[in-house]
């Protein structure tokens, strides 16, 4: 079994510790510090996020997405064809994102995540997984004012993000995580999703993890299983019916399961026993050595203390599970 984080980490510590990132963001807005100075604060906070994950005892970490305003803007603002518009609610959360608007042909312009990945890797004793928002989700959460057909829009975004994945690939990461939560809300687009995923993964040699959350994969999981990915990530809290998916569809023998069972959206801390029981249950479908145990989604929905407690718990569960099987 591998323990891993799968996304964002709170950018500021709990009160009364000063929120350096927040103060710096305010100063940047007021023009009191330079972009370069702000970047140094982001660097420090990224190192904190990595240190918390490593300190918790995870086998694999992310950079905490400290530099991401949100999972849409972070990519769209550095691609051709997009402008950035007003606030929209992000799925069923109380978190908001600035909506990208396709104003022209969407294309890749420059690496978005590569520098961040290099920085995180050089400051982490544990392997780092870079995360990329998937083409279907990026297009679905944007407005389209350019393409006559939504499918053309999605496929151009997939082409652009394929360049991003290839740029990451050149860094030989242990794994690239692609987030596609939106397909769970729009299962009618499954064929288009599959086509976009194929275009996205074309020529990518690094192992890829496809992650979904905030829902269940009934009716679409077969397509996830058919894609050339190493890990399929599912949310078993908001998507509690993913248990039915395992019952009815099983799990392929040559894939790993991203087992999202520690709730990223509630402060209530799962007990070790509770997660061990879930592991026991999932082991009927997937041997534990092919399970990636993690939170259901990024942890920026929580205050930092609660986020860290979740990661510590995940590592504790792995230790307890090893003792049980020893």
């Amino acid at each position, binding site marked *: 079994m591998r323990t891993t984080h799968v996304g964002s980490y*709170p*950018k*500021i510590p*709990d*009160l009364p510790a000063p*929120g350096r*990132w*927040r103060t710096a*963001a*305010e100063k940047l*807005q007021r023009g009191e510090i330079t972009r370069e100075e702000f970047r140094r604060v982001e660097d420090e906070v990224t190192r904190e996020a990595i240190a918390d994950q490593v300190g918790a005892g995870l086998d694999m970490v992310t950079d905490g997405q400290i530099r991401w*305003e*949100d999972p849409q803007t972070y990519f769209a603002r550095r691609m051709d064809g997009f402008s950035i518009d*007003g*606030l*929209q*609610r992000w799925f*069923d959360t*109380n*978190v*908001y*994102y*600035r909506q990208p608007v396709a104003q022209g042909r969407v294309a890749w312009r420059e690496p978005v995540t590569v520098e961040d990945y290099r920085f995180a890797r050089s400051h982490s004793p544990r392997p780092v997984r870079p995360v990329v928002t998937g083409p279907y989700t990026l297009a679905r959460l944007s407005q389209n004012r350019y393409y006559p057909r939504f499918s053309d829009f999605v496929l151009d975004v997939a082409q652009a993000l394929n360049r991003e994945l290839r740029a990451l690939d050149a860094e030989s990461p242990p794994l690239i995580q692609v987030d596609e939560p939106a397909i769970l809300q729009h299962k009618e687009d499954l064929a288009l999703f599959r086509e976009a995923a194929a275009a996205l993964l074309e020529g990518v040699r690094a192992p890829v993890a496809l992650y979904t959350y905030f829902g269940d994969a009934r009716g679409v999981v077969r397509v996830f299983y058919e894609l050339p990915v190493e890990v399929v990530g599912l949310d078993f809290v908001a998507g509690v019916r993913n248990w039915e998916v395992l019952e009815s569809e099983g799990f392929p023998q040559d894939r790993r399961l991203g087992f999202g069972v520690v709730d990223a959206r*509630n*402060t*209530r801390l799962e007990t070790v026993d509770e997660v061990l029981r879930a592991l026991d249950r999932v082991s009927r479908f997937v041997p534990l050595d092919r399970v990636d145990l993690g939170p259901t989604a990024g942890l*920026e*929905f*929580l*205050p*930092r*203390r*609660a986020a860290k407690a979740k990661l510590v718990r995940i590592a504790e569960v792995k230790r307890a599970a090893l003792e049980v099987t020893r």
Partner: protein
Amino acid sequence: MNGLPLFPTTTVGSFPKPPYLLEARRKRLRGQIEPEQLRQLEEQATREWIQRQEELGLDVFVDGEMYRGDMVAYFADEMEGFAIAGLVRSYGNRYYPKPVVVGPVGRRRPITVEWFRFAQSLTGKPVKGMLTGPYTIAEWSFNEYYPTRRELVLELARAIHEEAVDLERAGARFIQIDEPAIHTRPDEDFDLAREAMEIVTDGLSAYTITHVCYGDVPRIYPRMLDLPVHQIDLALKNEDFALLEVFRQHRFTKDIGLGVIDAHSHRVETAEEVLDGIRRSLEVFEPRQVYVSPDCGLKTRTIDETVGKLAAMVEGARRAREELGAG
């Protein structure tokens, strides 16, 4: 009804806090001033906003919520069963203190009644009683206590109902129950949110309003019309009145709080623009259904922007009345 003119003008609830009050709130957090000193400044700021509403010529007033930080945390702070979990980012560098339910929820004592009385004592115009709805309080809090969301929402509904009854006893003729989170899980939870609203408004004789914004209103329409309130207040301006198309398909049977001012842009709208918004809305509403308001609370605007926007709104409504010969 209610002695109000055609197209009564009102606002959604919050106004920007003046700089002296923001400073005092910071000092209070650091323990540098006493609660009583903060309270005096909150009262001063409330007086100023009542005075501005008089000068602007609004028809239905609010107290401006000078004493509230966040619309959910305020109620959580005042009720049993909650703690504050910590700061959570909502977007950009905006953070809010997110409550967590740690025990049975309920009122210790009336929450908003004293402020309602204070604001109403300053004006002859009706002041709205302003409550956050049970579904939104539950949805925007963590829950470490109740086994299901349903139990939490219904228990909160009973507490907010008690508060509404107390507001009515204190003389509130208008009671607004904000439910901006109501369409978070439109299929799974809308019936629960409706059931909760039935509990909140049960037996009230006041004119009741619910405010809904930021989300997929078409997904809960026309079911939304089953909410047991007299008026539904909606943001139309920020999507350039796109919702009117939805209401064209299925008649809107309640009064509408017509959001004609974008609460999240710095630009001050013109009276002509407001008039145009009202005219367009009259293609789907009867004139007597329409209350004129901004899209949302104005607390993120500056005081000057707020006054400019509301002046345009009041003037736009006046011209709309005039056009219908009801001026």
